[in-house]
Each structure stands twice: as structure tokens, then as C-alpha cells.
């Protein structure tokens, strides 16, 4: 296989003689320590963020006890079957650090960028820095076909909490048919097919990208200071797609757990709970196989926007409005209608955990080789509180993360969790965050 070079394929294929190369049959080895190896390569670790809008009722969400001996509450009950594989964080705060509390924005940005944002509100705005998934994708996402995937469940591609610094989101996939085509359409190389046919068009596309890239210096001279970063991002994107194509010109490594899914049926998006969760189910089926088939290692799923427009069919008011205008039930101590959604959110998250955990990889599961952080943008959405923002991590990063605990942040910055995740993902980061959110305190209980 070492004799493979891009040039040798290029010359052979472009001149019209399609070359098909036999690959070694699927060959999964265990090394002497029992650690899973696929075709002699360690099983990769994946990372994802899973977002739901409008927070929690904290007394019904966080367990009373810390450590490993804790019991789930009503809003986290669906996680019970996965207790050993999840880590609950409470008591970690988004510190505003002199910035205003930008509603439904400060919390999610603080958590994902370690920085309190200065512009935005109502679920959209300017990211003060790259979000956690992008940072991790820069580290682990360069040798898969897609550096990362984003998914939203209510039909709006602008609903995404995956961003580089600035106002542009990494747009979400919202349609099962187009996501399927992107992942498993004609450009897909089945890692287990036993043969590999490089696509000559991919090579032409690569040379086009390479030519576009060459105009960079000339164009950079033409734009003003404020636009240089935007133009530069364009060329960064060009490079990333070039790398993506380069991956397609390499014979794919066998992937034990990869089973190419069937094409999904068309599905109309909607904002009712039933529509959104059905969409979540179909899109995450594809996502899980994209991970198992090594198409990507990083993802973001948004069940709803931070200003959640989820609603029950036939109800006039959506979740976000409910959190602000529904009276708190005097006896129960929470908003009953809003809680309908809140206590079901972890149930939806649990379906993703279950899917990941049912894919066998080496001597564990896909979930064991992942970290998936679920989070919302506030604690009590009614008042946009930023203390004890809910974060739950599933998985154990291939053994680098001790799951099955409830961790007490004691009022520390949320950036500690982001820092610890980066470290567990193998990134050489000693300190993370900005201003009062800066931290070098790893959550040592988990790593």
C-alpha cells in the first residue's frame, strides 16, 4: 500500500484506465493489551456537542449527591440505563466578566468558547472565539472526509452552535435525504468493500481548488484590514475541502462497525415536539453511521434553537415563550407546560447515547470511543440564569475519561469543562478561556 501516491493514481486514472485496487480484507486486530485496533490503527476518539434550548429546572435535573453514588432526578431519569457512561456537571458558571447577559447567548458561548460574548442575544450573535467542536476538529478531524458535521432538527440550517469567531455559523444539515447524499452518495468510498476506485473527477476538483488557492496573496492585498480575516477564512475553507478530497484519493481504512445505511425517505421538518424528535431520530441514524464509517469524527446536534420554538401540536405557545410567561405552579414549584419539553430533552439525548453504545468497536462501543457533551444555554431560562449551566458528557474517550460521576463545580467557570474535554481529546492545552473565565484547572475527577 505504500506504493500508492496521488501522482501514480492520477496518471493512470485520468488517462481513462480506471484502476481498482484490492484492499486487504476487513481485519480487526487486538493488540497485546486488548486495546482495539482496526487494521493496525487505533480506534479513533470522536467528539460531539448536543444542544437543547431553554435550560432546566435544576432541582428536578441535578442529582443530590456528588461522586459515583448518585440518583437521577425526573429530568435526567432517561439517562438511568447509561449511568456508568455519563458524567454530570453542576455548579459550573458562565462568568459574564463585565459583559451584559445576552439572553440565550452568553451561556452557550461561554461554555463553548470559554469567553463571555459581547454581541448577540436571543440565540444568535457573534462568537467571540471558535467553539469547542471546531477546536477539537482542528485537532482530530483532518484525516476524515468531513472535518465535522452539524445537524439541526427543526428545519433551519442557521440553527447551529458550531462557529468560528464571527457571526457565521457552520450551517446545519436539516434534511435526511441531502445528508444521506452528502455522506453516502456517489462520492462515498465504502471502507469495507474490499476495493478502491479513485474518482478521476476528484483529482480535477483538487487541481481547481489548488488553482483558486494560488490567487490568495494577490487578493489579500486588495481588501482592507477588517476584511482580510474574512477573505483568509475563505482560503482556509478551500484548504479544508482540498484535504477532504485528498482523503477520498486514499484507500479508506477498514471500519469494523461500518454498515452503509439505507437511503432515508423524505421527511418534512416541523417545530412540534413530534416532528423535531422524529427528525432527530432519522438524522442521528445517519450521523452514527458517518462516525462508524470514519466519514467524520466531530459533530454538533441542535435539537432546537436556544430560543426554542418547539411546541406541542395544537398549543399556541412555544417553549421559549412558555419559559417566560407561564406562571410557576405554586404547588409543584415549576412551569408545567415548559417542563413538558425540558423533562423529555434528556430522553432524546439518551436515544443518541443508546445508538452510539450499540455500535461495537474493538472491545467496546462507539460511545466508549467518544465524548458527547449535552448542554443548554441557561439554567433557568425564565430568568436567563447562568449559574450551574447544565452539562452532561457521555462516553469515555477510549478510556481517557472516567465516566459515571456527578461533578461539583463549586461556582468555577464553565471553561473548566471545556478545558478538560480538550485535554481528554489529546490536545496539548494547559489553559483555556478569556478574562475571568480563563482557567488551567482540569477537572481531575474525570481524567
Amino acid at each position: 500500500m505504500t506504493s500508492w501516491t496521488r501522482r501514480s493514481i492520477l496518471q493512470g486514472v485520468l488517462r481513462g484506465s480506471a484502476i481498482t485496487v484490492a484492499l486487504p480484507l476487513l481485519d480487526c486486530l487486538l493488540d497485546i493489551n486488548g486495546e482495539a485496533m482496526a487494521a493496525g490503527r487505533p480506534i479513533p476518539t470522536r467528539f460531539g456537542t448536543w444542544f437543547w434550548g431553554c435550560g432546566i429546572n435544576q432541582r428536578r435535573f441535578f442529582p443530590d449527591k456528588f461522586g459515583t453514588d448518585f440518583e437521577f432526578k425526573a429530568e435526567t431519569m432517561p439517562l438511568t440505563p447509561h449511568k456508568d457512561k455519563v458524567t454530570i456537571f453542576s455548579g459550573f458558571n458562565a462568568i459574564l466578566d463585565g459583559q451584559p447577559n445576552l439572553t440565550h447567548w452568553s451561556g452557550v458561548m461561554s461554555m463553548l468558547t470559554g469567553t463571555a460574548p459581547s454581541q448577540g442575544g436571543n440565540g444568535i450573535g457573534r462568537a467571540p472565539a471558535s467553539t469547542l467542536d471546531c477546536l477539537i476538529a482542528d485537532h482530530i478531524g483532518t484525516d476524515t472526509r468531513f472535518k465535522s458535521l452539524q445537524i439541526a432538527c427543526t428545519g433551519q440550517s442557521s440553527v447551529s452552535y458550531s462557529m468560528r469567531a464571527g457571526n457565521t455559523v457552520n450551517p446545519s444539515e436539516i434534511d435526511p435525504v441531502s445528508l444521506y447524499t452528502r455522506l453516502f452518495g456517489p462520492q462515498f468510498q465504502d471502507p469495507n468493500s474490499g476495493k478502491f476506485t479513485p474518482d478521476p473527477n476528484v483529482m480535477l476538483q483538487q487541481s481547481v481548488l489548488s488553482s483558486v488557492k494560488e490567487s490568495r496573496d494577490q487578493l489579500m492585498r486588495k481588501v482592507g484590514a477588517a476584511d482580510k480575516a474574512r477573505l483568509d477564512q475563505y482560503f482556509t475553507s478551500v484548504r479544508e475541502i482540498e484535504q477532504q478530497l485528498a482523503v477520498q484519493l486514499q484507500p479508506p481504512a477498514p471500519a469494523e462497525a461500518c454498515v452503509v445505511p439505507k437511503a432515508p425517505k423524505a421527511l418534512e421538518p416541523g417545530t412540534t415536539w413530534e416532528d423535531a424528535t422524529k427528525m432527530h431520530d432519522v438524522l442521528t441514524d445517519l450521523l452514527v453511521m458517518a462516525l462508524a464509517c470514519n466519514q467524520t469524527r466531530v459533530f454538533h446536534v441542535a435539537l432546537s434553537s436556544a430560543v426554542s420554538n418547539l411546541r406541542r401540536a395544537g398549543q399556541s405557545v412555544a417553549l421559549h415563550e412558555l419559559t417566560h410567561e407561564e406562571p410557576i405552579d405554586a404547588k409543584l414549584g415549576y412551569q408545567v407546560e415548559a417542563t413538558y419539553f425540558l423533562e423529555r430533552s434528556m430522553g432524546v439525548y439518551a436515544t443518541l447515547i443508546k445508538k452510539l453504545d450499540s455500535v461495537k468497536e474493538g472491545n467496546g462501543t462507539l460511545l466508549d470511543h467518544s465524548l458527547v457533551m449535552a448542554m443548554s444555554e441557561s439554567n433557568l431560562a425564565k430568568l436567563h440564569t447562568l449559574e450551574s449551566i447544565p452539562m452532561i458528557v457521555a462516553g469515555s474517550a477510549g478510556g481517557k475519561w472516567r465516566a459515571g460521576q456527578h461533578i461539583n463545580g463549586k461556582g468555577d467557570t464553565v471553561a473548566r469543562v471545556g478545558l478538560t474535554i480538550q485535554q481528554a481529546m489529546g490536545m496539548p492545552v494547559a489553559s483555556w478561556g478569556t478574562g475571568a473565565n480563563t482557567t488551567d484547572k482540569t477537572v481531575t475527577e474525570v481524567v
Partner: protein
Amino acid sequence: MMTSFAKYWNRRSTGGALLFATATIFVAAAVSREPTAAAAAERTLASDDDPASWGGPPTFRRLSEDQYKRSIAQIFGADIVVPGRFEPPVREDGLLAIGSARVIVTPAGLEQYAIRAHEISAQIVEGKRRNDDLKCAPAAPGTFDDACASQFLGKYGRLLFRRPLTRPELAAVMTLSRSAAKASGSFAKGVESGLASLLLSPSFVFRLETTEPDPLHKTAQRLDSYSLATRISFLLWDAPPDAELLNAASSGALRDPAGLQRQVDRLIASPHFEQGVRAFFSDMLAYDQFGGLSKDASLFPIFNPRLRDDAQEQSLRTIVDHLLVQQGDYRDLFTTKKTFLSRSLGALYGVKVDSRAFNGWMPYTFPADDPHSGLLTLAGFSMLDASHEGRSSPTIRGKTVRENLLCQPVPPPPANVNFDLVQNVNDPVLKTARARLTAHQDNPVCAGCHRMMDPVGLSLENFTPVGGYRTQENGVTIDASGTFEGKSYKNVTEFTHLLHDSPTVTSCVVQRAYEYGVGRKVATSEEGWLETANQGFAKDGYRFPALMRLIATSPEFERVSAARLAPPLKVASTK
């Protein structure tokens, strides 16, 4: 908060001369940071060389989905399929046009641009609709005809980049084409790759504005001719300059006031002007929210995607007919009884529609005693609230009027407001939105902004969330009275007449049209010109095409503040 509001709003009505003088001082301070200290010092004292305004920085705007598609259709033909998903637009300072100057292209976005570039290019070079300009292609396989490829790529490169390709650009695309042809053994594949690289260049995907010194004002910069042609063309057509406008840019005709006027008049007289007017109002009125808009089907069984699309189209048709076909007064848009109805809208308004004779849209005039009069009373306004699917929100409606029609930005609410009282639709005491919101206004933290938004929205409460008409909410008669700009009104009809007579309404459309064209917020030094433009708009009887002409031909429209000099254009091809 009240104070800053009052300041903002009063500024508009300040005497023009005073405002202008103040603006000049501001500018002197602002520009002193610019490159040459000598020039800056000169500017602190008004010089005869100074222009009336200093403009703003040149912009770098990402083409919108419509602009991209329109470029392909205009340059290569309407039958070319443009595939793939576009990145969502971003609204900033009230306009997507301003957001377009701040967005980036993400890797996921670029992946889509790359797919598009190749699929479009294949259709043009190899597809059924092979381009006539490729008749020169060599017959023998494996040969490459430099002249043929260069002529083709130079011509279409100029249309795509909205300026001639530079020599290095043409050389690069030729090198690519040659090597792709060699590798694939096909001349067509080579040219196809070359064309794809043009389609994937930031010079096409973005509008990159470049500047030159202004010979009329030694201290100032202006757009170069091609960038000016592009600004004009996107303002009037929401599309790139056609060959004739590019020729006017290259020949210098656009620098001659008569030549400029001729081109602007030609663009305004063209049928494409309608798409430009639609694009502007779609942006100003935030019609992008119609995409994916839904209402609860069980509460509003009449609502469906067809009704939604028709509601948007009804408003746009009303605007286009009134402003372009009838050459009407912009202010009358708020009171006009004339509109168009489709069958689904007929059901909503309770009017029997026989639209067969009118291509689906029947012209209709609401009776004198009908409450419908003007844009705000049409379904397209009533239903355009993406955050409320089950009821109307006077606050959102009021905010929409304030921000989109009066150019009065409303600050975000404080984060820690308790909304318990506000909108409990089942409140046994506070049965109407007015009662609930009035209670809310008693909270001093909220009152400042809500006093601006709610009364306007409450005057429109007679219209349901899907645009139907109602007189009661929860069994109580809706009170649509209020005051606007110090004048009281009893109902929505009186309110729309106050809007009609408000100078804020007309100055807002002037400001937005200008900002839409230049792709940024109006600069302090431009306030004086805006006043002049307001007077010009009034003098022209508030005719919208006249306003667009005024903007497109004004020296302010091509004025830019920061130097972004294009290197002398070594033109590789002229046609």
C-alpha cells in the same frame, strides 16, 4: 434608555444645517486616523477639495443565494441548474445587505460552492446546452487550443468577476485548463476546470470593492468604475452588471454624469428593475422570515405553506404595482386599498376570487368601509412573526414597525425580566393583550422600550396571527386606539394615515435604500446628504424609482473612506 431613544429620534428632525455642521466636525476627528497625516491635517480645515461626505469603507460582500443564481442565469442562461445548499444569510443593523459584508464562507459552505462550480461548469461546457462560445473547440482529441480557451475564459471571467481578469488571473486559469486537458485528454474537461475555478474564486463569490483617488476631490477616494458599476447594478437589479454596463465602466462613460445617468435610466427602465425592487423590500421588510414560517394548524386551519407564500407575494405585488406600475407615492403604500388576491387569500379575506383571467392574481380594491388599507393590514405583515406560531404578539409587531419601517432600533430586553404577568393568555382578569401588556409597562425596567413598541402593535391587534380580521379577544372588544408621534388615533385606519403622514416613514426608506446599496450603516458624515435626499424624495412626489435614481447617480454612492487601491488593472481581455 429613554434619553438615548429620544436623542436618536430627535436627531432626524434637527435642522439640516446644524446637523451638517456637527457632522463635519465629527468627520474631521474620524478621518484623522487615515493613512497620510498631511491629508488628514488638511481635512481638519474644510477645503474646497473636500467632498460633501466621506463615505464609509469599501465592502467585501458575499453574494446572496438569489444574487448567485441570478448571476448564473444572466451570464449563462436561465436553464442552468444551480445545485446545492447556500449558507444562511445574517441580518445586521437591520439588513441582510449589511450582514453580507460581515459573513464568511465556512468549510461546509465552500464544499457546496465547489459542488456548484463543477456542476454548473459541466452544464455549460459539456452539457446539452453547450455554450456557443465553445464552437472554436479543437476537433482532435488531446489537442488544446489556446486562443479558443483564452477567448472563452476571458469573456466569462469578466462577466463573473464583474471586471476584466488581470493578466496573472488569466494566466493562472489557462495553466489550470491546459493541465486538466492534458491529464484528462479532453479539451472540454480542461476548459470546464478553468471555468469551475472562476466560479469558485472569491472574486466571484464575493463582491470585492476597489477604490481610486477621486480626481474631483483631491483629499478623497471613490470606487473604481467597475466597483461602481457593480454597486449600481446590485442596487437596481440585485444582479451583476450586464455587458453594456461593464462596457460603460471600461470606456469611462460611467464617469461622465450624462453617461452615468443614461446607464442608471436604462437599468431602471429594464424589466429587471422589478426584481431589484422586490429584493430591496424583501430585505427591508425581513421577508426572509417567510422561509419555513409556520402557524399552528389546529388553531389556524386556514394556514398552509400556500397561504404563506401567497401572503408574501401579495405584499410584493402590491408594492411593485404601486411603486412601479402606477408610479405611486411611497407613503400611499400604507393606506392603499388596492391589492391582488389569489384564491387562498380570497378565503382568508372573505372575498370571492376569480383569478383565472389574471394568471392567478386578481386585482382587488377593498371597499371603503373595510378595515384593510395598506401594507400593515395585509396578511403578509400579520403572519410575519417567526417566534409566535399560535398567537399574535403586539410587541413583536410593534418592534417590526419601529425597526423596519421607522428605522428605530429597539434594544434587547434586560436578561432578568420576570414575564409571569405579561402574557398569560388564560389570565382570568387580564383578558386582552392590551391589558396584559399595560400591566407589564408598569415595570419601569420594561416600560421605556415597551411604550415604543406595544401601542403600535396593539393598534394592529384586529388582525389575527394569519391575517384574518377580528374584533374581539377572549370575548372583550379589542381597543386599537393609541398615539403615534404625539397624535392620537382611534383605530388601525387612523393609525395607518398617521404613518402615511410621518416624515420618519419616508426618511427611513431613504436611509435603508442607501444602506442597502452601500452595504453598511450610514456614516455620520452622510447624515447631511440623507437630509438632501429626503428633500429630493419629497420633491419627486415620493416616487420610489426617482429615489433609486437619486441614490445611484449621487457622488455619495461611490464615495469610500479608506484606501483600498486596486493595483493598476493590467487588463487581460476587454470583451
